[in-house]
């Protein structure tokens, strides 16, 4: 069975493609939309992107495998990305990561069995003045300590 978009998403994708003089240039934004809709970019989504833009699947794979934000496997409802770069590490990122690991019972790269949380470490998020920092999906959180992490994670829907 092939993947189907909602009509709204189809319109969004048409609009995106129209922004570029070459269809292929829309690949990154189109992949973002596909990932938002289906939660991942696995083989099926690659085929979909390829057919939308008139390029081969291997071209899509080349791109998906290059960029860290494209998830080839689905992540949990909340993707927690803890910065492990220099300033955050100076300010205690390792302790923050340990605490989240213990709280959720998963290591970086893993997803909780209820598919609620995925934990990752990432390079600099561009929020060094609020180190240590992390993202939960696309929301930034800084000045982290144990209390704040409890507050953030326990108050998610």
């Amino acid at each position, binding site marked *: 069975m092939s993947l189907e978009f909602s009509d709204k998403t189809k319109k969004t994708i048409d609009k995106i493609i129209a*922004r*570029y*003089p*070459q269809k*292929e*240039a*829309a*690949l*990154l*934004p189109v*992949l*973002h939309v596909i990932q938002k809709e289906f939660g991942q970019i696995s083989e099926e989504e690659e085929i979909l992107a390829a057919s939308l*833009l008139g*390029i081969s699947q291997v071209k899509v794979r*080349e*791109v998906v495998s*290059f*960029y*860290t*934000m*494209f998830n080839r496997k689905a992540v949990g409802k909340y993707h927690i990305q803890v910065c*492990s*770069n*220099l*300033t955050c*590490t*100076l*300010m205690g990122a390792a302790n923050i990561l340990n605490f989240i690991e213990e709280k959720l019972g998963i290591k970086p790269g893993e997803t909780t069995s209820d598919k609620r949380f995925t934990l990752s470490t*990432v*390079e*600099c*998020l*561009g*929020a*060094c*003045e*609020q*180190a240590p920092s992390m*993202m939960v999906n*696309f*929301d*930034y959180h800084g000045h982290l300590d144990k209390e704040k992490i409890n507050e953030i994670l326990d108050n998610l829907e």
Partner: protein
Amino acid sequence: MKEKVLSEHFSIDNFFKLDVYLKHNGYQAVKKALTELNPEKILKEAKAANLRGRGGAGFPAGVKWGFVPQNGDKPKYMCVNADEGEPGTIKDRYIMTHNPHLLLEGIIISSYCVGINTAYIYIRGEYENIALRLETAIDEAFQKGFLGKDILGSGFDLDITIHRGAGAYICGEETALLESLEGKRGNPRLKPPFPASIGLFQCPTVINNVETLANIPSIILKGAEWFCALGLPNDGGTRIFGVSGMVKNPGIYELPVGTNLKDLIFKYAGGMKEGKKLKAVIPGGMSSPILKADEIDITMDSDTLMKADSMIGSGAVIVLDEDTSILDVLTIITKFYSHESCGQCTPCRIGNSWIKKIVTRISRGEGKDGDIDNIARLASNMVGKTLCPLGDAAAMPILSIVKKFRDELETSIK
């Protein structure tokens, strides 16, 4: 109070909205540029302002625009570098969050100057919420006739598209950014040809950093002379320095180019946290060579830092205190560059990965005699031997750490 060009209005509520922006002289620079000035005059002013690129390389923006051939029949493009990935760098996030219309004004004026009708803002993928804010700002500007066809009756057309990256540091390098914008892996191109002649979609292209472009409106309104007087004669204006690490008040500080680094840390950022002693400073993002505590009485401008064998880069200052282990710093730096190397050039791909292996082994307590020399040798072999500056960007901080903190590193081995 020092004069502020970019951050003066950051604290005003809803300044990101067009109606609020218009109440504070918003779009006056676009009006002046498009209705009173011609492209030649704007280029002359931009050159005279000595506005050096704020992304890292410090190349004068006006000179860059001047490289674009004016007589071809191909379309020309503007690419705004909003990829902000250099560790320590936070400034463009502030500009785009609090002052998106200032950036749009800068894009409109510079596009008008170079004769460009299509601009792309390449923004790092993680900044999704900021990308949405920029899209709203673009929609508002369209509605008021500051973007689109025949802007303010000038006959000039401009369209701006937001293009989100997807988590690759290398795409901040200008030719990797172009590849990424064309829907490909972010593998940098061989230069020359430079983007000014063959860039996006094989067409002439200008690539400028967010902060660079955000300075343009004030230069148009107040003039190049004012801008130079604000900073240094050959390096004009202010910079938004991002200070992070072991200081009392980490954050952004917009100060004149040429501000003393010691003042930035001790006067503006409140000095060291918990009364600790300063150990070292990374003055311009992680790629810039490290300065020891006794080397920070220095002015923050492109030329001075270059003379001190470092660089101002993106103006991101990372402060290390006496408790910081230099081996930990080296471990993080090597992990980062080996992860972010695109893999295209052998010296960078293999060099960074070997340096990481050696440094990781040392941090496990299994260092061997000769390790430090090997790290230096591998790093030296990357310098100048890669298509893009990532090889140098990795080698420079590593070599400076080996040179300045060799004794401390050696004690980790013995």
